[in-house]
């Protein structure tokens, strides 16, 4: 490298970095350092929240849910950290929160093995820990809150059996099959359709990605003249499949079912008549704050809270869906 203006370059870089840094600090996303600090006579509680990554809208939603729930309780102050999908960075965040002696730690861990011990250290130092969505090994935490992908997959399978009256041709667009949610949604779905005359005629791994789902669906449409239903492991996949089918002019003959039901994605698609149903994969953000308040006020909480799912279809979407057991 032979730049002619080393000083100029350095200065420009510094200026840019400073500007960006201050901009990022001002508002780091919808769930930035949301500090609800009003002067109240009651004790202030500081909650540290370590999110494994904010690359997925679902996790952005989780942080937003936590921030919204916490905003209703002025005595709570939540500090958000994003580990950017880096296990060691998340470990460092847990250690930072522990040494800052936060009143409670919420962690949505990237992986179980490497984060179990750091969390156990924090718990041993007397900090209550709520584990969200993904599990850790052992029981060195206060409470686990998460949903059951297998149950959701089964609920989707059972709904499809009911809709198609027990028989028909189904295309399954699977989430990444090397990930646990993808595997669980798949095996749950198989449980759900077991015993019916439903045939899975085409099955492809679309890796949670909409463009891939669209391509796979085009292949399925080219091969099969009679498809009754598409079950995609996420709403993006179902949306991509719908667009492919609409381009082929066959969207009236096929039902589309997805999972996740984020307000601005799956639920919106059901409202717009794109999807026939979506099953919520809850973030647990609001439940985490409820549980945190109980812990902070000295109440007992269960070791494990399994969240239920909600079904959104065209009949109930206006009422906010129905809860499934």
């Amino acid at each position: 490298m032979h730049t002619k203006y080393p000083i100029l370059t350095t200065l420009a870089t510094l200026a840019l970095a400073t500007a960006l840094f201050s901009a990022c600090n001002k508002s780091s996303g919808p769930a930035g350092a949301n500090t609800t600090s009003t002067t109240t006579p009651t004790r202030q509680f500081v909650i540290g929240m370590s999110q494994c990554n904010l690359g997925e809208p679902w996790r952005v939603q989780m942080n937003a849910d936590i921030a919204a729930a916490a905003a209703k309780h002025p005595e709570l102050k939540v500090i958000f950290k994003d580990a950017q999908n880096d296990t060691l960075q998340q470990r460092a965040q847990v250690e930072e929160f522990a040494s800052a002696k936060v009143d409670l730690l919420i962690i949505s861990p990237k992986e179980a093995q490497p984060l179990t011990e750091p969390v156990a250290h924090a718990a041993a130092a007397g900090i209550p820990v709520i584990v969200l969505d993904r599990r850790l090994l052992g029981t060195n935490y206060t409470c686990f809150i998460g949903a059951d992908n297998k149950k959701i997959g089964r609920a989707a399978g059972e709904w499809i059996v009911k809709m198609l009256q027990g028989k028909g041709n189904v295309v399954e667009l699977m989430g990444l099959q090397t990930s646990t949610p993808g595997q669980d949604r798949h095996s749950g779905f198989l449980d759900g359709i077991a015993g019916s005359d439903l045939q899975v005629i085409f099955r492809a791994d679309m890796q949670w990605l909409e463009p891939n789902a669209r391509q796979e669906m085009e292949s399925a449409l080219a091969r099969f003249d009679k498809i009754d239903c598409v079950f995609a492991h996420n709403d993006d996949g179902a949306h991509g499949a719908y667009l492919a089918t609409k381009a082929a002019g066959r969207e009236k003959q096929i039902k589309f079912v997805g999972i996740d039901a984020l307000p601005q994605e799956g639920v919106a698609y059901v409202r717009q008549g794109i999807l026939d149903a979506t099953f919520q994969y809850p973030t647990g953000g609001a439940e985490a704050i409820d549980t945190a308040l109980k812990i902070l006020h000295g109440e007992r909480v269960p070791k494990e809270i399994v969240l239920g799912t909600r079904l959104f279809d065209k009949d109930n979407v206006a009422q906010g869906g129905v809860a499934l057991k």
Partner: protein
Amino acid sequence: MTENFQSGKKNALVLAIASPAGRALLALLLVLIIGAIFNADGAFFKIGTHRDTLRQASVYGILACGMTLVIISGGIDLAVGSMLALVAVCCAQMAIHWNWSGWLVVPACLIIGGCCGGVSGFVTARLGVQPFIATLSMMVLARGLAKYASGGMKVSTAIMNPDGTFRYVEVPRFFRLVDHHILGGNLSVVTLIFAACVATAWILMSKHRWGRYLYAIGGNEEASRLSGVPVVAAKTLAYVASGMFAAVAGICQAAQEQQGDPEAGMGYELMAIAMVVIGGTSLMGGRGGIGLTLLGVLTIGYLDKVLSINAVPEAGRLVLTGIIIVVAVLTQRRKRT
């Protein structure tokens, strides 16, 4: 090569196959033959399959057009996937949320892409940072900007009101136009856009002085400088063009998904590079062309489709794609004389 062929006809055929274009065509033919054999109950012979193959390959192909310009000048552009995402997000914001007309959205998107490419080009050509590093920085930067502009969420037709509820708007007409089929439903508009990009790149490279500059710079940068080629300007412009092609790809992506996804385009840069290289354009710069890239785009596009209609499991797909890319590149390898 030995010179003991009996007929001149045969000689001509061998020479044709030995040329880079002939070899790239051979790779494409091979994939097509595989498709004809494993035709998934005749699905491969339907017109719709070919329309969809070309539609799916178009976004990659548009990126590959820009990538070809940059690679011929001896550089590389790793930022195209991120620039695509940034433009997709901005495009969705302007077209869906702000309800701007397509006549305004497209130029604005091209400017955004051109500016990003311009920064990469300036850092590479003027400040002398290696293209790999300069565009790697832009790849991270543009991804960050895309996430910042969208707040990490997809920019879709569901718009959040200040009170947290949602209102829903129509998909813009201009999106529907881009994601449309013409000629009795047998050709996607995005494929036409891809064809227009290929034509533009071809004209720039073979009919314009700038194209010859790029070949010269890729061949020998120092010699070009000494013979009066405006190296810095020509190189910077290559990155600007790559950014603008990425912007076109971003518009197509947003229109096809009906939303702007800040995570879109992950890994697309590698796919675009693979398409350029399979075509036979040299990564060392100075040799190759847009026609070769077109063959590379079709080869990978059809390979993808053949694997997809046969529902080959993911693991097998990755292995097969890897093997075929290596074989295709090996057949492209020229014997240095």
